[in-house]
């Protein structure tokens, strides 16, 4: 085991929610797995005390606009969808590392930022079912 590069990261999605395929021309993703904490501090406590609530799974994927059906159109179609798709996020897709990923059902929103440079697209996702972290061999 060693630190891996994000250069071979990957974002995969399947609107049908079963077999995700790669969305090309992306170059970043970010996921947050924060659990809400409830403040249960009582009289007499010497510091604040919290108990965990529900975990929230959300994040973003981003890259460049590409009209290839395997690229940005997937994000914008997902933004219009009324049912969630299967999203799979890989930090590194090279052979020894591709077994390590996070995945789950998610809703996606999409944005495009067009300036004089290459237009950038962003997708914001939120969980629509249980998410899992898979640690491969």
């Amino acid at each position, binding site marked *: 085991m060693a630190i891996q590069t*994000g*250069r*071979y*990261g*990957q*974002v995969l999605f399947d609107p049908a929610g079963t077999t995700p395929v*790669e969305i*090309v*021309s*992306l*170059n970043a993703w970010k996921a947050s797995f924060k659990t809400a904490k409830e403040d249960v501090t009582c009289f007499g406590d010497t510091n604040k005390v919290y108990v965990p609530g529900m975990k929230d799974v959300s994040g973003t994927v981003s*890259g*460049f606009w*590409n009209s*290839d059906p*395997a*690229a940005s159109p997937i994000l914008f179609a997902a933004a219009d969808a009324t049912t969630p798709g299967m999203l799979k996020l890989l930090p590194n*897709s090279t052979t020894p590392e591709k077994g390590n990923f996070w995945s789950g059902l998610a809703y996606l929103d999409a944005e495009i930022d067009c300036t004089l440079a*290459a237009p950038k697209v962003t997708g914001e996702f939120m969980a629509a079912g249980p998410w899992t972290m898979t640690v491969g061999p």
Partner: protein
Amino acid sequence: MITPPVDSANVENAILAALINDAPLQALAPDGVWWDSAGEVNGKPRTRYVIVSLIAHMDVAVFGGRGYEDYLLLIKAVMLNAASVDIGAAAHRFDALLDDPDPLLDVPGFVPMAMFREQRIRFTEHDAENPAIRWLHWGGHYRVQVAIPT
């Protein structure tokens, strides 16, 4: 997806070919189009020519490799003062070829994104050996962006 290998020299070669094969530019700058510097040929110095140089280059990455390449090229007409009557016309000619052409220049192995002048240049240089001789430089910095096919 790992991006396929591409030959980046194709970009520079396509620019050179577009300039070299343009008959109006040949007439205005008959001593040719050169990469970086114009040398003597058969002992005859060049006095009316075009120079193309690479100022900067950047590979813009996506997951798995290069998403697109970004070039900044210096392209200028260089002419001896006494022979410089056509320098403005030469600079105008290659600007017409390279500033937002429609269609964009075809580059084998790439998908053209954009090509445009970013900055104009015009200056005069005194000859290193004979200060009475002046060399005129007209042209610009040209941005060229080409995508790797997906």
